[in-house]
């Protein structure tokens, strides 16, 4: 498919996401609704991965660029943040580390428990 058409397909899905959020006044952002929509289209085979390969590559390779203007917006709030800049930054860093560790260790723990149960079941069957 032409790159421009690929782009139109993905943008159209995002537009559908926005429409759903608007019509049903969901408190969930349209980008995540669009992600779910695209996922469903892929599962039901309405869209094949190769149909949109080019645009997906473009979007993902340049993802960081799309965040830049939101980052630049910080300049509008310098004055407000000036007084509590250090705690602001510290909280961002510390809580990110805590969240990372908590998530990774939970996955490890639950996986280990699952494996133990599976082994027990296998052991039971053997007897």
């Amino acid at each position, binding site marked *: 498919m032409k790159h421009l058409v690929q782009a139109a397909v993905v943008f159209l899905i995002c537009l559908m996401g926005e429409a759903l959020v608007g019509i049903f006044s969901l408190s969930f952002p349209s980008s995540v609704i669009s992600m779910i929509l695209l996922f469903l289209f892929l599962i039901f085979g309405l869209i094949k991965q190769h149909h949109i390969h080019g645009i997906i590559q473009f979007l993902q390779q340049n993802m960081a660029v799309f965040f830049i203007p*939101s980052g630049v917006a910080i300049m509008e709030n310098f004055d407000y943040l000036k007084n509590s800049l250090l705690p602001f930054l510290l909280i961002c860093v510390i809580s990110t580390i805590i969240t990372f560790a908590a998530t990774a260790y939970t996955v490890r723990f639950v996986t280990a428990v699952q494996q133990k149960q599976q082994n027990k079941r296998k052991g039971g069957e053997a007897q």
Partner: protein
Amino acid sequence: MNVIQVLTSSPLFGVCLTILAYEVGCILNRKLKTPVANPLLIAVVLIIVLLKLLGVSFDTYNQGGSIITLFLAPATASLAVNIYAQLEQLKKRLLPVLAGALVGSVCSVGSILLLSHLFGLDESLTASLIPKSVTTPIAMSVSQQLGGIVPVTVAAVVVTGIVGAVFAPTFIRLFRVKDPVAAGLAIGVSSHALGTTKALEIGEVEGAMSGIAIGIAGLITVILAQFLA
């Protein structure tokens, strides 16, 4: 009208500045070979300094900037493809993935509440920080709901994302995470789509799990916010 006013009056100014600043960031990143020289971080600093020097307002820049931001939603949606490609992996590991996202999100909100209290931050700044680990659009609506200041939330989201994108490989080593599912999920839950850019570089499974985490952690945080509001 002087030259600067003429140049900045077109949205193309913001578009070009954003792309070129990122390119400079990429070049510096390759030259300096340190993760702190993150291209996004360099681009943001470069643009702010340039705008201040030229006396150009954020709104003028954002005429073009908003065009770039427009691609953020399709980019987030595009992660569905990575999740689809890792469907088998997800089915096999559904319970650990859901449990990890839940515990991670609760720890994120909990640690922010605790730290804000310790640092003696006021309520509106605390509310602005609470949703900082989830993707920008979700964070914005949660912040609004809790009485936060939306631009401050966006700042916190970007700072958190940069921390994740820069230090994810360090965290993986530090906490000895060998399971790619755990690593990807941890990146996504702690630092949303920006961290996911790094996860995509690390590996296919990491990228997909990080993408899944954006959606699940976002959903959980929206629900948690209902209890705090």
